């Protein structure tokens, strides 16, 4: 049954306010939770009894060819069409501007026939340079982790299993460098599939594509080991295979998404906050709920121990998180049988833990309560169109008040200070790659994308100053069309308060990785490993059962490493 997060939840339980939640530092500390899109997917696939099959694996001894993996649900089948390539090392780049990859993929809506495969074989391997059709729901590519790939192939080829420590250190055999969905390069728009129950939650097609890709990658590495080792080769130990996720390398392209989809982001955050409020409102916890929480907390601590990064920002956060866990584990050993245990725990955490620690605890507190939370999952989708029309009858004094309520930080910012506008988001001519530049040092300001809602709201507020307060917004916008996008934004922020980042997105000290991590955490990513302030590697589906192994027992908590795993 689908429940809806609505205004009732605002009054019934205390939601953490947007001013607290929508700060970049906190968004950059979010962790996956049971509402994450990967976990919504695996729960659904198991509860509906989806069947999985490998329909084709026509890969030669050089590792070149194609494969098809099918997922058959109650009403429809989706197929991952994978193309494997022989990529010279010097062409292996995770950047969007790359032109060749180790493997390329499309998620096909249905079961492809020979003609579909032939058509896709001409288009999918060249990615952005090709065209796909309304029969395809996503387009993606992946590169090998050369180090782990070589290690695993060499070991399996000689009849040995790979070193578990090397597996832990890297975490994946291939990493995707882009997963395009929703209409990109000719694919079907989200609207085409949004009414299907299995696609109601956000990014389910993309998550399914990655989940099937992980299966293909395991088959590929075993295939290459057989080619190399012949009869000596062995299959990958299932327990080791399960530890492997699919890596992902994400650059700046994902950051504008968070600013450009305020209604959607609002629903993601609002649903998670609503779930948290419901849990905090519980007067007591049962023994089994407490036991599950403690078990997952311990397993989570293990995942944090395994988490590898070399970036100084994340190293510092990770050190704080490990210190947090050292405080949390003894703290929760007792007291959870008291009145309103989760509310009490979070209040303690807010005074005692880093943002990483607080948000990890929030995610864990939701775990025992699927029965009151999981129904919210489909509410995380949004129709952006709903906020598009501007209410031009709104008097200007009300527009001003909305800005003062939703953008107080922006009105307090001195926008004439160079550091306040140090950056500008732009799109490069070359392969249309989104970039972030230094406004005062590079000639990029004329190309700036509208990704600074705070600054723009402050500019609008300033220009409203001279107009009589009872003038309708329509009359103002007739004379000031340059404020049109900002006026729309301000009205959306009033309807969707969790859709607006409450920080300066063009300031000198802004970290794009905070925006990337917020989005990736909702996907269900783990092991955040920033490679710079604007580029991050993560792992997806690590610990998950492979599709043929999926059962109701293992579909939910796979993200937390089991004892011994």
């Amino acid at each position, binding site marked *: 049954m689908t429940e809806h997060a609505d205004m009732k939840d605002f009054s019934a339980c205390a939601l953490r306010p947007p001013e607290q939640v929508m700060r970049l530092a906190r968004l950059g500390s979010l962790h996956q939770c049971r509402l994450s899109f990967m976990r919504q997917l695996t729960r659904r696939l198991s509860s509906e009894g989806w069947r999985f099959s490998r329909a084709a694996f026509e890969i030669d001894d050089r590792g070149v060819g194609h494969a098809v993996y099918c997922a058959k649900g109650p009403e429809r089948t989706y197929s991952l069409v994978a193309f494997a390539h022989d990529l010279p090392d010097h062409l292996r780049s995770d950047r969007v501007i790359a032109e060749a990859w180790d493997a390329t993929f499309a998620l096909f809506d249905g079961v492809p026939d020979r003609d579909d495969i032939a058509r896709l074989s001409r288009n999918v391997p060249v990615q952005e340079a090709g065209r796909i059709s309304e029969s395809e729901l996503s387009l993606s590519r992946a590169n090998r982790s050369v180090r782990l790939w070589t290690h695993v192939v060499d070991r399996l080829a000689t009849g040995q299993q790979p070193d578990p420590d090397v597996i832990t250190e890297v975490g994946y055999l291939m990493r995707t460098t882009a997963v395009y969905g929703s209409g990109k390069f000719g*694919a079907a728009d989200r609207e085409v599939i949004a009414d299907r129950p299995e696609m109601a939650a956000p990014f389910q097609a993309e998550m399914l594509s990655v989940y099937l890709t992980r299966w293909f990658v395991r088959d590929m590495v075993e295939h290459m080991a057989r080619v190399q080792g012949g009869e000596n080769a062995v299959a990958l130990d299932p327990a080791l295979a399960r530890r492997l996720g699919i890596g992902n390398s994400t650059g700046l392209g994902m950051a504008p998404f968070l600013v450009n989809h305020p209604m959607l982001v609002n629903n993601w955050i609002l649903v998670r906050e609503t779930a948290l409020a419901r849990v905090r409102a519980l007067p007591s916890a049962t023994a089994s709920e407490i036991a599950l929480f403690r078990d997952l907390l311990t397993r989570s601590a293990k995942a944090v121990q395994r988490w590898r990064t070399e970036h100084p920002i994340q190293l510092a956060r990770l050190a704080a998180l490990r210190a947090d866990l050292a405080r949390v584990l003894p703290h929760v050993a007792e007291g959870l049988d008291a009145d309103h245990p989760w509310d009490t725990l979070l209040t303690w955490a807010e005074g005692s833990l880093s943002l990483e620690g607080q948000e990890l605890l929030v995610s864990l507190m939701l775990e025992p309560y699927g029965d009151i939370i999981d129904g919210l999952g489909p509410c995380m989708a949004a129709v952006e169109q709903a906020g598009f029309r501007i209410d031009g*009858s709104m008097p200007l004094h009300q527009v001003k008040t909305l800005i003062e309520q939703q953008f107080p930080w922006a009105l307090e910012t001195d926008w004439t200070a160079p550091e306040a506008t140090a950056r500008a988001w732009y799109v490069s001519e070359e392969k249309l790659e989104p*970039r*972030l530049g230094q406004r005062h040092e590079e000639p990029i300001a004329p190309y700036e994308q509208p990704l600074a809602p705070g600054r723009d709201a402050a500019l609008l507020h300033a220009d409203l100053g001279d107009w009589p307060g009872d003038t309708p917004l329509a009359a103002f916008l007739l004379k000031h069309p*340059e404020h049109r996008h900002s006026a729309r934004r301000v009205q959306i922020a009033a309807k969707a308060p969790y859709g607006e980042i409450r920080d300066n997105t063009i300031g000198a000290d802004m970290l794009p990785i905070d925006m990337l991590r917020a989005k990736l955490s909702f996907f269900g990513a783990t092991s955040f490993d920033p490679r710079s302030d604007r580029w991050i590697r993560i792992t997806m589906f690590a610990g998950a059962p492979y599709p043929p192994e999926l059962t109701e027992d293992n579909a939910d908590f796979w993200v937390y490493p089991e004892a011994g795993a």
Partner: protein
Amino acid sequence: MSLSLNETESLAKTAAKGAGLCWGMAEEAAKATRWLCARGIDACDPLVALLFRHDEEGHAQTGPERLDGDWHGAEGWLCPVACGAALSDLGKAASLPLTLTRVALPVFLLPFAASIAREFEQPVTLSWDSGQAVADGDAVALDAPPPPMSDVVLTLGGPLLAETPRHSRAETDQMILVSLGIYAARTRAPATEASRLAGAGAGLTDND
């Protein structure tokens, strides 16, 4: 060529910005293009014509000078997107019947007329030199493409429309896309080696 509606909207928005519209107006042009294409009305071709006119004539004020009385543009013509946006902003405060003098590519008025029809809870009829159209909420009836420039009269009322069949793709000519692409390209910064490295924040090979 078959485009997804998201691609169409995204290209239309960037092209409109490249032709000199401000971001908010470019968003309106893009949503209007998508709305028309989703109802089987080719909007990419007229969009090129509209953007060409904007580009040729500079980026002067092309919306109505005043909202009371008949609408006129300061430059002797009206942009249908600017007029449509003003109509949509007014909603029920729009005073119909309303005469718009010399509107370029009036087909772009249809999505906005449909939007105010929803506000008024009755159809809106648009009449121009050689014909007319009716718009109502999600539905539209258009017999023949309107002329490239015409006076337009909007009146409340008109025949109730059957649901308009939805199209999930935009079908358009390759050359039209090339034209839109030329405008869109103006929004993009030329790459330099420095921006290639610093701007995206990553190196160029990943053999690890």
